[in-house]
């Protein structure tokens, strides 16, 4: 089942939250929606889930138009909103039962609730009130809520934000498992997260799509050169750095040098360079490229 978004625009007051966005997601795809805060990820999801209407443009879920039959679309969508809102004073089972009722799912509600509790690993916490759960378990309740009616399309808005690393791994695994048979769109502002889960990435910035590609090819694009931070014992002059082979760019950051090198093998040239100039390396560490750098690269290559 597919999701199709056609030149969607949403204007809040004078601000363009999203600006004629178009993309299509096919069944079995896990698409990562990547962008900094305020880029328009949540707005797009809110429109697809029929919570709000676009200013112009249209979106289709399974070929159904969001403007004509929102209730039918909501039947086929599982949506985890940002910040995972929950009825804190309900019990886990009670809450999931309520959601099952809202969906009028076929078959026994109680049985389905038990299935979901098992699937999302909530079994030890099933008799607790939601407000008593840890953040990771609350997130599982949110995901269970989105999955209970076995939707074709899943919209997950920052599903792992605020979780500790172990919980992140668990939730990611859960999403990847689910995503084998469904269309999943998830948003995130962490590159590594999208890399870990998605087979396709859509990067959105200031309401516009700046990249839409397979994860591998996008990573390959941004992997031109590596970034390392080096601390030399003795101060070095910028002119001396010309002797360093494989160097693309260098920047002095409070005594430490941020070096951009051609590839990972060029690291040994840094040692050779230190030896040649009679210097010593105190520290050398790789720098993970953050989203901003990815953006810069992508927007640069486009121009």
């Amino acid at each position, binding site marked *: 089942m597919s999701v199709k978004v056609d030149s969607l625009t949403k204007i809040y007051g004078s601000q363009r939250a999203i600006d004629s966005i178009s993309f299509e997601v096919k069944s079995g795809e896990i698409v990562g929606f990547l962008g900094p805060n305020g880029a328009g990820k949540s707005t797009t999801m809110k429109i697809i889930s029929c*919570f709000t209407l676009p200013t112009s443009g249209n979106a289709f879920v399974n070929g159904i138009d969001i403007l004509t039959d929102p209730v039918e679309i909501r039947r086929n969508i599982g949506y985890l909103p940002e910040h995972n809102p929950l009825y804190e004073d309900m019990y886990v089972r009670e809450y999931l039962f309520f*959601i099952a009722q809202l969906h009028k799912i076929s078959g026994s509600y109680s049985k389905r609730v038990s299935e979901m509790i098992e699937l999302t690993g909530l079994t030890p916490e099933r008799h607790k009130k939601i407000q008593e759960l840890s953040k990771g378990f609350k997130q599982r309740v949110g995901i269970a*809520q989105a999955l209970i009616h076995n939707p074709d399309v899943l919209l997950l808005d920052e599903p792992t934000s605020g979780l500790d690393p172990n919980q992140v791994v668990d939730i990611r695994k859960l999403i990847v498992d689910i995503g084998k048979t469904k269309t999943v769109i998830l948003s995130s502002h962490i590159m590594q997260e999208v890399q870990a889960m998605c087979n396709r990435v859509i990067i959105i910035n200031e309401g516009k799509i700046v990249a839409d590609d397979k994860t591998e090819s996008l990573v390959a694009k941004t992997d031109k050169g590596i970034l390392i931070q080096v601390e030399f014992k003795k101060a070095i002059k910028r002119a001396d750095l010309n002797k360093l082979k494989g160097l693309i760019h260098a920047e002095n950051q409070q005594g430490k040098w941020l070096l951009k090198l051609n590839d990972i093998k060029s690291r040994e040239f840094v040692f050779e360079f230190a030896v040649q100039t009679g210097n010593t390396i105190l520290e050398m560490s790789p720098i993970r490229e953050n989203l901003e750098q990815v953006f810069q690269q992508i927007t640069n290559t486009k121009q």
Partner: protein
Amino acid sequence: MFAIYLKEINNFFSSIIAYVVIIVFLVANGVFLWLLPESNIFDFGYASLDQLFELAPWVFMFLVPAITMRSFAEERKSGTLEIILSKPVSDIQIILGKYFANLSLVLFALLPSLVYFFSVYQMASPVGNMDIGGTWGSYLGLFFLGAVYVSIGLLASSLSDNQIISFILALFICFFFYSLLDMLRGLLLISPIDPFLEYLSINTHYISMSRGVIDSRDMIYFISFSALFLFLSRLIMEKRKW
């Protein structure tokens, strides 16, 4: 709609909200009816529940906004509104579910006060010598009055994500339609529209019902007034889309 109704009812009774509302309603009215000098039924000397029916609209004026204020305000603030609105239910189903749940609570508060009715009935001399038609009419009127208050409360709750603002707003609108309109009627300049104001006032129809005559005009007034406020709530909820 039924799922939402059940959830709200569960929420009222699994927290202490419902019990507080019911007890406060009974105690406040009971004190005036049985205890306080001047107003108590023994000094009054007649077997009637007039004191109860005079006071109850004022008690509801505070209690009903207090139970409705969280309906949408809380959901909006905590974001859960986005959860239910992404489920296959329409806005009007959500509003009606909440409306009937709150209205049920009003009914649950009213029901135990039948004990007062029964006591007065037994104390009358001879037993049962009271205006039974008028009492039932008053009860029905009180229920419909509660129904309008609840719809006003829901509208106020949909207007703000702050519960206190919702409460005060609902209190004021209830006061306006119950009492202030009547007071305004006395003012000189607007006398030509007096009949219109009289028609709009909740009190007019409440008193008319308490005579024991179930007039379809009063019923239509109460039902259409509730519907109007619910419709306005729906418009406010639609606003999220723009």
